[in-house]
C-alpha cells in the first residue's frame, strides 16, 4: 500500500507499523508538525510528561518492563538536551530507548538558530546509534532502523533527529512488516568451559543484566541446580534468579553482604553471565577474586577482559549459551563449598534505630500486593536496601538505574513500567532527595491516569552522600541536609492519595490503603535520620575490606 504522507505522518505510521503504541513526550516549536499529525493516529497513545527527562526515563521503564523499545519525543534545543540524562541512563544499563527529536529546518542548521543544538553531537557517546534525517524519503527507514538497532544485540538508546521541514515535506510511504527478531546467533565451543566447571572446587555464578535481557531465568536456575553452584546476582541481575532459592547468595560489591564478597574472594572459578564487572561490583581490581579463573558469557565481545582477566570468553546470547552448557554439563554438587560460604555469613548489622526499618516497609509492600508487583528504585541508600531486602519472586521485577546511578529515575520510570504492566502494582521507591528531582511527574500520572504507588524514604538527608561524609569526610555534612515539603499536602494538591507513616504499627495499613486506592498514591516513611547501609567496601578498597558497622573514628578521605 502506497500513500503520500508528510514526514510527521510517516513517523506516526511507521511507529504504529513497528508495533509502537505508546510515546512519552513534550511538544515545542521544531516538533510541532509531529504533534499536528498525532491526533490522526489514535492508536498511538501520547503521554504528556512535565519535563523531557521524565519522557526518557518513562520510555526506559517501559523498555525494561517489556523488552521492547520505549519511545520518547522532544523538541529541538532544550527539549532535546533534557533527554540527555535519560539516554545516558539507558546507555549505561543497555536498555532499548528510541528518542525522536525535532530539529530546526535544514536551511538553518549550523547557523545557531533559535532552539538549535547539535543533539547528535551531544548524545554521540551516550547512544548506541543516532541519525539526522536529511531527506523525507529516508525517514521511514530511519525510524525502522532506530527501533531495530535499539533492541537487537546488546540493546541501547537510539536518537532520530528530524528537522522541522523534513516533518513537513511529503513522500510516498509504503508499509513494511516489522523486521523479524534476529536469530540468537551461534554458540561458541564449550568444551574447555565445561571442563573448568567440572574441575572447580569453589565455583560461583555471577549473574547480571544479561540474564534478564535474554530471559535466561529458567536456564540459570537449572544450571545452578544441576551443579550446586551458588548464584550471585548483581544490582541489575536481581530478580533474574529467585531471591529465596537456597543457592542464591545475594548481591556482590560495594554494599554486598560479607559472605557474598568473601565467596568471590575465595572462589576458584567465576562463571560471569551478562555482566560488566563494574567497579562497584569488583572493588579494587588488583585484589578481585585473585584465586579465580573467570569464564565470561557475554553478548558484547568488547566487555570480555575489559576489567577482569578472563580465562574463557563465551560470546553470545546468555540464554542460548546456558542452554548449550546444560546439554553438556554433568550433574555435580558443591556442598562443601556452600558450607564454607555459610560459615562466612555475619549477622546483619542493625543500622536502624526506631520502628520503621526498610525490611518492615518492603515486607508490607510485598504483602499488600500478594507478591505480584514491580519495584522501581531510585538511587542512594534506599536503593541498596530495596536491592538487598525485598523478596523478589518473579523475573524482572526490580528496575533501577545501575550504571549511571541517576537520582530522579524511579518516579518517571515507574510510569513507563505501570503502563507496561497494568495488572499489577508498580511501586516507585525513592529517597527524599531523588523524589524531589522528578516529583513534578505526579501531574502526568493524574492527567494520564497512571496508578503508580510512590514510597518516599524520608530521612531528611541525601543519605548516601551523608554516609560517605560520615565515613570518609570527617562527618562534615556539607549540603546533605535536605528540606522536604509536606508530602501529604503535596499529594492533596495533586489530588492523589497521600499518607505519612511515622510508627511501625501504621506501615501495613498505609501500604494496603495505597495499593487498594485506584489511582496514584504517595506514602512517606519518616525513617531513622542517620541510618547507614552496611556492609560497605570503601571506594578503592578490595572486597576483603568491608566496613561492617559504625566506624569508631573518622576515616581519612580516600584519594
Amino acid at each position, binding site marked *: 500500500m502506497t500513500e503520500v504522507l508528510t514526514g510527521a505522518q510517516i513517523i506516526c505510521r511507521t511507529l504504529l507499523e513497528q508495533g509502537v503504541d505508546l510515546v512519552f513526550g513534550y511538544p515545542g516549536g521544531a516538533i510541532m508538525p509531529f504533534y499536528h499529525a498525532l491526533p490522526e493516529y489514535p492508536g498511538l497513545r501520547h503521554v504528556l510528561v512535565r519535563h523531557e527527562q521524565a519522557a526518557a526515563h518513562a520510555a526506559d521503564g517501559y523498555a525494561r518492563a517489556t523488552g521492547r523499545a520505549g519511545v520518547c519525543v522532544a523538541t529541538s534545543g532544550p527539549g532535546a538536551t533534557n533527554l540527555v540524562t535519560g539516554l545516558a541512563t539507558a546507555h549505561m544499563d543497555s536498555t532499548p530507548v528510541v528518542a525522536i527529536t525535532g530539529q530546526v529546518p535544514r536551511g538553518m542548521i549550523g547557523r545557531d538558530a533559535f532552539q538549535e543544538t547539535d543533539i*547528535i*553531537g551531544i548524545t*554521540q*557517546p551516550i547512544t*548506541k*546509534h543516532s*541519525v*539526522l534525517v536529511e531527506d523525507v524519503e529516508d525517514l521511514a*527507514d530511519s525510524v*525502522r*532502523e532506530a527501533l*531495530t*538497532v535499539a533492541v*537487537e*544485540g546488546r540493546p541501547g538508546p537510539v536518537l532520530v533527529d528530524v528537522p522541522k521541514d523534513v516533518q513537513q515535506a511529503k513522500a510516498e510511504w509504503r508499509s*513494511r512488516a516489522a*523486521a523479524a527478531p*534476529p536469530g540468537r546467533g551461534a554458540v561458541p565451543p564449550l568444551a574447555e568451559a565445561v571442563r573448568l566447571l567440572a574441575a572447580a572446587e569453589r565455583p560461583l555464578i555471577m549473574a547480571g543484566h544479561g540474564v534478564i535481557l535474554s530471559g535466561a531465568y529458567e536456564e540459570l536456575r537449572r544450571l545452578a541446580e544441576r551443579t550446586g553452584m551458588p548464584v550471585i546476582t548483581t544490582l541489575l541481575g536481581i530478580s533474574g534468579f529467585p531471591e529465596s532459592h537456597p543457592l542464591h547468595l545475594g548481591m556482590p560489591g560495594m554494599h554486598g553482604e560479607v559472605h557474598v564478597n568473601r565467596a568471590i574472594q575465595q572462589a576458584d572459578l567465576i562463571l560471569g553471565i551478562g555482566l560488566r564487572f563494574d567497579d562497584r561490583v569488583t572493588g579494587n581490581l588488583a585484589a578481585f577474586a585473585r584465586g579465580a579463573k573467570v569464564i565470561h558469557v557475554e553478548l*558484547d*565481545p*568488547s566487555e570480555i*577482559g*575489559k576489567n577482569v582477566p578472563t580465562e574463557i570468553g563465551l560470546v553470545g546470547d546468555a540464554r542460548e549459551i546456558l542452554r548449550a552448557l546444560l546439554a553438556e554439563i554433568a550433574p555435580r554438587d558443591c556442598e562443601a563449598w556452600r558450607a564454607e560460604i555459610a560459615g562466612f555469613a555475619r549477622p546483619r548489622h542493625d543500622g536502624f534505630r526506631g520502628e520503621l526499618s526498610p525490611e518492615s516497609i518492603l515486607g508490607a509492600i510485598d504483602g499488600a500486593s500478594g507478591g505480584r508487583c514491580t519495584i522501581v528504585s531510585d538511587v542512594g541508600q534506599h536503593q541498596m536496601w530495596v536491592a538487598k531486602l525485598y523478596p523478589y519472586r518473579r523475573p524482572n521485577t526490580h528496575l533501577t538505574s545501575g550504571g549511571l546511578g541517576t537520582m530522579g529515575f524511579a518516579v518517571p520510570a515507574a510510569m513507563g513500567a505501570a503502563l507496561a504492566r497494568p495488572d499489577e502494582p508498580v511501586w516507585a521507591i525513592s529517597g527524599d532527595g531523588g523524589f524531589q528531582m522528578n516529583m513534578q511527574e505526579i501531574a502526568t500520572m493524574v492527567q494520564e491516569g497512571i496508578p503508580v504507588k510512590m514510597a518516599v524514604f524520608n530521612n531528611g538527608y541525601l543519605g548516601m552522600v551523608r554516609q560517605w561524609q560520615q565515613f570518609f569526610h570527617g562527618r562534615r555534612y556539607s549540603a546533605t541536609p535536605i528540606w522536604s515539603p509536606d508530602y501529604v499536602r503535596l499529594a492533596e494538591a495533586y489530588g492523589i492519595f497521600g499518607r505519612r507513616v511515622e510508627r511501625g504499627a501504621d506501615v501495613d495499613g498505609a501500604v494496603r490503603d495505597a495499593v487498594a486506592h485506584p489511582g496514584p498514591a504517595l506514602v512517606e516513611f519518616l525513617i531513622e535520620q542517620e541510618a547507614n547501609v552496611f556492609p560497605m567496601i570503601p571506594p578503592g578498597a578490595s572486597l576483603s575490606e568491608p566496613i561492617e558497622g559504625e566506624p569508631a573514628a573518622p576515616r581519612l578521605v580516600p584519594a
Partner: protein
Amino acid sequence: MSGLRVVTVLLEDRLITINRAVGLLRRRNLPVRSLAVGPTDAPGISRLTIMLQSDDATAERAAQHLEKIIGVREAAAVLPAAAVAREMALVKLRPPAERYAELLDVVQLYHATVVDESSDVVIVELTGSEAFVLSCIRALERFEILEVARSGTVALESGATAPRTGTHPQLEAGVR
C-alpha cells in the same frame, strides 16, 4: 607490552561516522599517536588508520569497540611487524643560499624530493615509517624549517587479507 600498534578501520565516508569513530577514541581515553583518514577504492568507504601507543589488548579492544559503531564495516588491530606502515610529510624550508647544495644532499640521502621552489623557500616531500620521517625532519632542521605538514600513518596488513565486503551485520539483519 606497550609499543606502537596499528588499528585500521573501514567505514562509511560520512562525517558523522568518522566523528563517531574518533569520538570513541577520545571517550575511551585511548593513547592515540596519529590518525589518518582518506578514501579507499570502494565507493563510499573510507579508511581510518589509527596509531596507538599501547599494548596488544588495548588495541584489540579498541577494534572491538569500533566495530560496534554502525557505519563501521571492519576494524582490526594489526601488529606493526605484520603491516606496512608509512606516512608522508611536507617540509617547508628557507635554506641559506650557500647551503642549498648541502640540502640537496640530505634530500637525496632520504630519498626525498623537492616539490616546490619559490624565491628562497622550498618544500620537500618525504615518505617512510614514522621513525624514518622523524629522523629526516631532524636532518632538515639545520636548514631553517618554516612549517611541517605530516599525513599521519597509513598502513596495510601484509599478505593476502581481503577486507570483508557487505554491510554491518546489524544493518543486514535490520531494514536497510
